[in-house]
C-alpha cells in the first residue's frame, strides 16, 4: 500500500489530469452497468402491468440515453486519454533520464546499477508497467464500485442467491489460481530461454555481425540456435496455453451454471412464495442480470487486484532507481577560483565498487601549473581511472587529491567542474549542431572562437563542405538532413569542445586513436600551442606523444613506477617505459638511411 501510495504520488506530479480522467472513466463504466441491470426491470414490469405510455417512454428513453450517453463518454475519454498516456509514459522516461544525469557518476559504472536500470527500463518500456498499473488501479476502483452496487441489488432477494454466487466465485477463483500458478511456473522457466532466443534473433539481424557471419560461414550455427530456442519457447508457452484453455473452459461452465441456476431459482420465486416473497418477471430479469454481471465482475476484480500487485512488483526497480541518492553537491562549499596551480595526489588508493583488487595503490605525485604530463601504462593499468578520480567521478578509498592545496571534494561542484576540460577515450558527441557540440550551449556562443578552433584542429575543409557549416546538425536519427562524421573527424570535434571550454586543466585520454598519422602528428604538434599555458594531462598508446611532455608518469600494476622526463626514462633500459617505447620505435628506425 505504501508502494502504491508513492507511485501514485509520482504519477500525480506528472499529470493529475490523467488520473482524474481514469477515475471518471471507471465510475462511468460502473454506472452504465448498474443502470443496465436495474432499469429494464421497470420497463418489463410496466409492459406486463399497466402499460402507461408516458412511463414506457420514460423507462425506454432512460435506457437509450444510458446506452448512447455512455458510448459517447467512452469516446470522449479515449480522445482525452490517448495524448495524456503518451505524455505520462514519455515524461516518466524523462524523469528517469533526469535522475540518471543527476546520479553520482560512480553508480553509472557499477554493474548493480546498470542492471537495476535495465530492469527498470524493461518494466516501464517493454511491460509498460506505468500505464498498466494506473489502468489496474482505476479498474479495481470501478470493480469495487460495481460489485457493491450489484451486491445491494442481489441482497434484496435473500441469502440463497448470495450463497450460490459465493460458491461460483470460489470455484472460478480456484480455476484462475491453477492458471496463474501455471503461468508463474512457465514464466520462470521461460525467461532465460526467451533471453537466449532474443539474443540469437538479434545476432541474425544486427548490422555489426554481418561481416563475420558471412566470412566465417556462421549462418547455420546461428540459425540452429535460434530454431532450437524458438521451439523451446513455444513448447513452454504451449503448456501454459493449454492450462489456460482448461481453466477458461472451467470458468465458462461455472458462468453457464450460474445463469441456469439463477433462472431456475428466481423463476421459481416468480411462481410461488415458498422460498420467499413472490416477485415480478421484471425483477427476474434484473436479478439474473445482476447475478451474471456479479460473477464476471468479481472475477475481473480479482484478476485486476492480482495484476495490480504484480505490476507494483514490476515497478520495484523503477521506484528503487528513482529513490537513489543524487550527486553530493553539498559536500564542498568553497568556490574554485583562479587557475590550477598544483594537482597533488597524496597516497591515493582506489578500488572500484565491488571489485576485489585495488586499481591504484598508494599513488602520489604532483603536477605544477602549465606542465604537460603524459601518463603511460599497459591496457588496464589504471590510467583512465586516475582521470576519473580527478574529475570527481569516483572517490578514493584513502589518500587525498588536492588542487591548489585543497581537497577537491571541498570545492563547490559546479565551479570545480568549470576548471576541467576533457576528451575521454570513449567521448560522445550529441545530435546538436557542430557549434553546439563545441560550445555546449545554445545561446551566447562565441562564433569566432569556434571558427578559430575548427581551423586549429583541422576541420575547416570538412565544415566548409557542409551546407550549413558549423550549424549542421549531427545524426540521421534526429534529422534527415543530419550529418555524420568519420571517427577521426568526430574526435577532432571532441578536441575542439575541450579547448572551447575555458578550463585551466585539460585532460586528453587517447585523443588521437582514430586519426591517421598525418592528422595525429598535426594534432600533437599543435597541442602545445592549443592548450597554451594550461595544465595538460595526456594518455596515449602512441609512445611518440610522450616525447612532447615535460614529464611522464608510468603506472604499472596500480602503482607509480616512475615519474620523470623522457630523456631520463630512456636511460633505464630495463624499465617498462623503455620497452614500450622501443617496441614501437624499432619499426621507424631508418636502417642505413640518412634523413
Amino acid at each position: 500500500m505504501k508502494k502504491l501510495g508513492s507511485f501514485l504520488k509520482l504519477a500525480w506530479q506528472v499529470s493529475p489530469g490523467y488520473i482524474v480522467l481514469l477515475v471518471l472513466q471507471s465510475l462511468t463504466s460502473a454506472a452504465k452497468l448498474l443502470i443496465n441491470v436495474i432499469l429494464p426491470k421497470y420497463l418489463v414490469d410496466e409492459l406486463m402491468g399497466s402499460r402507461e405510455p408516458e412511463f414506457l417512454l420514460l423507462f425506454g428513453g432512460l435506457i437509450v440515453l444510458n446506452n448512447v450517453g455512455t458510448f459517447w463518454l467512452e469516446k470522449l475519454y479515449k480522445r482525452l486519454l490517448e495524448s495524456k498516456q503518451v505524455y505520462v509514459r514519455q515524461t516518466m522516461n524523462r524523469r528517469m533520464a533526469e535522475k540518471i544525469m543527476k546520479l553520482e557518476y560512480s553508480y553509472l559504472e557499477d554493474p548493480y546499477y546498470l542492471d537495476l536500470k535495465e530492469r527498470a527500463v524493461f518494466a516501464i518500456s517493454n511491460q509498460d508497467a506505468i500505464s498498466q498499473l494506473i489502468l489496474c488501479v482505476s479498474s479495481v476502483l470501478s470493480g469495487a464500485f460495481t460489485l457493491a452496487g450489484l451486491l445491494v441489488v442481489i441482497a434484496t432477494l435473500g441469502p440463497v442467491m448470495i450463497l450460490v454466487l459465493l460458491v461460483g466465485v470460489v470455484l472460478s477463483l480456484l480455476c484462475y489460481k491453477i492458471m496463474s500458478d501455471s503461468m508463474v511456473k512457465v514464466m520462470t522457466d521461460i525467461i532465460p530461454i526467451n533471453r537466449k532466443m532474443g539474443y540469437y534473433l538479434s545476432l541474425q539481424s544486427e548490422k555489426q555481425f554481418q561481416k563475420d557471419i558471412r566470412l566465417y560461414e556462421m549462418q547455420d550455427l546461428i540459425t540452429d540456435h535460434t530454431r532450437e530456442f524458438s521451439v523451446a519457447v513455444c513448447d513452454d508457452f504451449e503448456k501454459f496455453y493449454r492450462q489456460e484453455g482448461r481453466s477458461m473452459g472451467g470458468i465458462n461452465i461455472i458462468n453457464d451454471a450460474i445463469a441456469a441456476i439463477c433462472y431456475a431459482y428466481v423463476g421459481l420465486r416468480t411462481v410461488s412464495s415458498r422460498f420467499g416473497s413472490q416477485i415480478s418477471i421484471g425483477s427476474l430479469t434484473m436479478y439474473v442480470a445482476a447475478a451474471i454481471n456479479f460473477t464476471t465482475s468479481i472475477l475481473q476484480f480479482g484478476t485486476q487486484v492480482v495484476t495490480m500487485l504484480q505490476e507494483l512488483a514490476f515497478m520495484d526497480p523503477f521506484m528503487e532507481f528513482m529513490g537513489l541518492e543524487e550527486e553530493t553537491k553539498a559536500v564542498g562549499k568553497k568556490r574554485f577560483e583562479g587557475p590550477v596551480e598544483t594537482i597533488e595526489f597524496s597516497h591515493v588508493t582506489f578500488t572500484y565498487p565491488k571489485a576485489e583488487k585495488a586499481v591504484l595503490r598508494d599513488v602520489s605525485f604532483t603536477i605544477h601549473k602549465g606542465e604537460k604530463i603524459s601518463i603511460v601504462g599497459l591496457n588496464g593499468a589504471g590510467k583512465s581511472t586516475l582521470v576519473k578520480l580527478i574529475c570527481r567521478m569516483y572517490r578514493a578509498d584513502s589518500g587525498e587529491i588536492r588542487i591548489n592545496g585543497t581537497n577537491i571534494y571541498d570545492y563547490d561542484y559546479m565551479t570545480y567542474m568549470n576548471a576541467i576540460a576533457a576528451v575521454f577515450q570513449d567521448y560522445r558527441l550529441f545530435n546538436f549542431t557542430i557549434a553546439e557540440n563545441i560550445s555546449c550551449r545554445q545561446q551566447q556562443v562565441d562564433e569566432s572562437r569556434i571558427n578559430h578552433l575548427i581551423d586549429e584542429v583541422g576541420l575547416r575543409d570538412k565544415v566548409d563542405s557542409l551546407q550549413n557549416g558549423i550549424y549542421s546538425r549531427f545524426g540521421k536519427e534526429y534529422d534527415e538532413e543530419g550529418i555524420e562524421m568519420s571517427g577521426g573527424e568526430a574526435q577532432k570535434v571532441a578536441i575542439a569542445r575541450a579547448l572551447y571550454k575555458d578550463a585551466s586543466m585539460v585532460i586528453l585520454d587517447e585523443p588521437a586513436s582514430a586519426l591517421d598519422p598525418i592528422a595525429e602528428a598535426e594534432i600533437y604538434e599543435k597541442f602545445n600551442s592549443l592548450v597554451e599555458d594550461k595544465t595538460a594531462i595526456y594518455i596515449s598508446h602512441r609512445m611518440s606523444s610522450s616525447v612532447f611532455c615535460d614529464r611522464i608518469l608510468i603506472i604499472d600494476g596500480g602503482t607509480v613506477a616512475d615519474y620523470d622526463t623522457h630523456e631520463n626514462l630512456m636511460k633505464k633500459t630495463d624499465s617498462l617505459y623503455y620497452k614500450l617505447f622501443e617496441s614501437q620505435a624499432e619499426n621507424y628506425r631508418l636502417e642505413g638511411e640518412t634523413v
Partner: protein
Amino acid sequence: MDATKENEQKKYKVIPVIRRLMKNLKEQDPGQIPRIVCYTVLAGVYPFLSVFLPKIAIGILEEGGVEVAVRLVTAMAVYLLVAGGIGYGMQRLKYVIEIRNMRIRILYLGQMGAKTMGMDYRYVEDAGFWEKNNRALNAANNNANGMEGMYNHLYRLPANILTIAGMIVMATGLSPWIMLALVAHVLVTMWALRQNHNYRYARRDQEAKATRKIDYYYKTTHDFSFGKDIRIYNLRDQIMKNYKAEIEGLTNLTKKLAKHEYLLSLAGVATLLLTNVLIYGILIYQTMHGMPISSFSMYLALITSLMAAMLTFGEDITFLQNEGQYVGDSFRLIDEQLEDGGKEPIAISDTLEIVFDHVDFRYPGSNTYIYKDLNFTIHKGERLAIVGINGAGKSTLVKLMTGLFEPTAGHIYINGNDINDFNKKDLYRLYSAVFQDVNVMAFSIRDNVTGGRKVADDARVMDALDSVGLGEKVRGFEKGLDQVMLKVIDEEGTDFSGGERQKLSIARGLYKDAPMVIMDEPTAALDALAEAEIYESFSNMVQGKTAVYISHRLASTKFCDKIALFDKTGLREYGTHEELMAAQGEYYHMFTVQGKYYQENQEEMAV
C-alpha cells in the same frame, strides 16, 4: 514521395496476403484446419444459447400451469449440459489454436533472420534495407498485431459469420427498420475505423519522426556511456529542455490524431442513437400489441448479440485490412531476390593473386567515387601493407576483394577468374580476415573459433589458440573449449580483454586456414606490447600465403614485402619500403612524420 506512398496503398490487396497466410498455416501446422473447423461449429452456436435462455425460462413461466417448477428446473439442467459442453470445448480449442499461431509467427522470425544473413552484403550497408527490414520485423515481433494478430482474427471469422447469419434468420420476424439501422450502425463504425486508420497511416512518418526524436534523448540519457561528457560539459539542463520540447511535440501530434478519431466516432454515436430508439420503440410497441414478454427479452438479447457480432466482424475485417499491409510488406521482403547464386563453383586450392583492372567504385546511393580507374595487382605469396590517411578507401579495398561489394565498373580477377563469376559463398571461403572491431559471440570458445562447424577438430582449435598465445588461458577454464563467451546466454560465461578478443579473432582466422589473409586495423585499440604480439601472430598466420595488412600505423610495413599507399585519389605509391623511402614521396613524408619523435630520440640517445 507522398504520391508514391499513396499509390502503394492503393495497389495493396488483402486477399493475396490472406491466401499466403493460409498456405503457410497448412504447410506448417496441418492440424490447425480441423481445429478451426471444430471451433467454428462450437463458437458459431454458442452465442445463440444465451439468446434462447431468457426466451425458454420466461416462456415456461408465462405459460404457467401445473408442474411449472419441474419443467423450469429440467429445462435449465438441459441448458447447462449443452452450454457447458459447447463452451468448454470452444475455450479449449481457442487456446490451442492461438498458441499454434504464435509458433508459426516465431518460426517466421527465424526465417527472416536467415534471409538477412544470406543476402548480399551490400544490403547490410544500405539504410533503406534496414528500414524495410524493421517494418517487416514489426509485422512479426509481437502477438497482438501483424502476422499473429491476423491469424488470431482470421480463425474466429467463420464462427462469427455463422453466428451473424443465424441471427439474421432469427430476426426476420422483426421490423426491417431495426435491421437497417443495425447495418447502418455497423457500416458507419467500420467506415470510421478505416478512415481513422488511413488518417494515421498518412501521418505515420510524422509520428515516427517525432518518436525518433524523443528516442534519441531517451537513448542518450539512458546510455550510461554518455554520462562522463554530460557531467564534464554540464549538458544536463540543455538535454532536459530539448527532451521536454520533443515530448510536447509528440503529445500535440497525438492530440490531433485523437481529435480526428473522436470526431469520426461521433457519426457512430448518432447511428447508435438511431438504432436504440428504433429497437426500443418498436419492441415496446409490439409488446403493447400482443407480443409475449419472453419474445421481448429474446429479441433484445438477440439484437444486442447480433450488434456485438457484427461489430466484431467489422473490426476483424478492418483489422485484417490494416495489418495485411504490414504483413504483405514483410512477405514482399522475404520473397525479394537479395542474394545471387547458382553459379558454377570455382575450385581454388592455391593462394591468391588479385588483379584490379580499371576498377571504379562508389557505394550504392552515393555520388562520391572512392576509386576511379584503379589498377593494381596483389601478387601470389606477397605480403602487402596498405597504408594511407583516413578516408582513403583502405577498408573498401577489402570489401571489394572479398565480394562484400561489387565494383561499379571494371573487373577484379582472382587467379584469373572474374570475381563476378564466383558464388559469394565460395568467395568468402578464400579469406581469413581480422577486423578492428572484434565481435565475440555468446557461443563456446570452440564455436567462436570454428564458426560453428559441425565437425570441429579440437586439436587444430587448440593449435590456433596456442599460436596466438591464448592456449594457457583456455586450458585454465574448467570447461576448456566448451567455455561459453559473454554472460548473455550463460551466467558463467567469460569475457576477454581487448587484446585477448583480438587474439581470439586471429585464432579464428588461423583455424579457417583460408588461401589468403587480411588484417584490417587490428591493433588500433591496443597498447604497444599487445600490438607487438599481434604483429608476431600475423607472421605465423601468413606462411606462404598472400596477405594484406591494412593500417594507418606505418610500423606494419616492416614485416611486409610491398607497400601500397592510398590517398583520396586512389593508389598513389607502390613499391618496397626502400624504394618508397628513396622516392621521398608521400610515404616518405608519412613515415618521417610519424617516426619523427621516435627518431629524434634515437639520435639523442646515441649522443
